[in-house]
């Protein structure tokens, strides 16, 4: 497998929080990833370390086979669009785009100009005075026009309305089709991005809990609805991740596949099967724990052992 990023045993500890807990994963070349997880799960920390804007407490990171830290050769091939990018006080979008153009060797000015028009971005206003959506547009334009071999979008949609988000998704797809590259898209709007991403990387409380193709992830869970007793009988021994009930009817989500015979048996028992969307699956998988709590618990336990 052709990986552009390799992460091994990566740990990041802030004073009282374990933000990344012995994390390992590979990122494949020319693939669009959904990098998903709750607030505080460790997404931004991971992306900051991969782009050498932050240092790990321990562990190894290789980008294009090299250590990215203070490594200009590697850094010019990566673009990190931060949710809270800081700009100088008197900077305008024109300044921001001009410096991006200098930094990224594959920069496409024509694409940048197109996007400025499409997002109706006022180029001469100071960035301080832009709306949240316009500020996000600056990041999205830099992220797309940089054509960097690896692009990180950290919640790039804040303040963008539905129309502007659709412009972003459409432009990302068409530009990716013409210029394949690696994209890590961190988003809470999982339903909106689930058809765009080829692989899903889910982080929860500092740990990777899912790393697979979107297609396999989608087929991972099923929802069964019907008479409570019948549902419970049918799902005995299965890994149930969510339960709801209304009177005598239960709706239960479980992880695992059903073969054709099992499907028929459930249908014959009067149970309805429904697919679980990627968003539902990830909500179910990550709501079982509060983000950070495990890290705190681990910390407390470790402290008490000392």
């Amino acid at each position, binding site marked *: 497998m052709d990986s552009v990023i390799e992460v091994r045993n990566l740990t990041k500890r802030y004073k009282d929080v374990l933000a990344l807990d012995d994390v390992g994963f590979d990122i494949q070349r020319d*693939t*669009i990833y959904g990098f998903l997880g709750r607030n505080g799960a460790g997404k931004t920390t991971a992306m900051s370390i991969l782009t050498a804007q932050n240092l790990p407490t321990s562990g190894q990171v290789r980008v294009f086979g090299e250590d990215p830290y203070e490594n200009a050769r590697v850094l010019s091939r990566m673009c990190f669009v931060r949710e809270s990018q800081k700009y100088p006080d008197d900077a305008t979008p024109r300044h921001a785009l001009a410096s991006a153009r200098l930094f990224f060797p594959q920069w496409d000015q024509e694409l940048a100009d197109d996007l400025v028009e499409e997002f109706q971005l006022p180029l001469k206003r100071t960035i301080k005075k832009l709306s949240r959506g316009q500020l996000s547009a600056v990041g999205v334009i830099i992220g797309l026009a940089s054509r960097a071999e690896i692009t990180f979008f950290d919640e790039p949609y804040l303040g963008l309305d539905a129309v502007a988000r659709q412009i972003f*998704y*459409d432009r990302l*797809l*068409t530009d*990716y*089709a*013409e210029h394949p590259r690696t994209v890590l898209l961190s988003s809470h709007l999982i339903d909106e991005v689930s*058809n*765009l*991403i*080829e692989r899903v990387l889910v982080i929860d409380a500092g740990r990777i809990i899912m790393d697979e193709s*979107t*297609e396999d992830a*989608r*087929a991972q869970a099923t929802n069964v609805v019907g008479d409570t007793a019948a549902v419970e009988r049918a799902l005995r021994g299965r890994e149930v991740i969510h339960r709801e009930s209304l009177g005598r009817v239960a709706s239960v989500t479980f992880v695992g596949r059903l073969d054709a015979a099992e499907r028929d048996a459930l249908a014959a028992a009067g149970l309805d099967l*429904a*697919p*679980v*969307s990627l968003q539902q699956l990830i909500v179910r998988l990550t709501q079982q724990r509060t983000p950070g709590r495990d890290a705190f618990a681990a910390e407390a336990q470790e402290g008490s052992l000392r």
Partner: protein
Amino acid sequence: MIEEGKPLFVQIAEQVEDSIVDGSVAEETQAPSTNELAAFYRINPATAAKGVNMLVDKGVLYKRRGIGMFVAAGARDLLLKERRNDFALRYVQPLLAEARRIGLEPDDVASLIRAGVEPVTP
């Protein structure tokens, strides 16, 4: 247009098949490219490619080097045959299952179908 439950690439393949079955994309003419499908359905190009490859394996599409994907000769007949074979399973059996649940005999269903085909007289 896109639903949960069925793999996305299968749905894309079915959309292309639909346009061949209804004749809007004729045999020996160019089929939509992977990138066109990706842009139109707003899906990852790798997913669209998987759907297209499935149709190539099935003999519905073939690749002309340097030009793109084309609809194979005989593709429409192939698909019609496949769909006619699946018709009982996909449509008739669920219909009869519901009929049984609500107390209709197969004969009742048959006469309903005939009545549905005939023009309604005022």
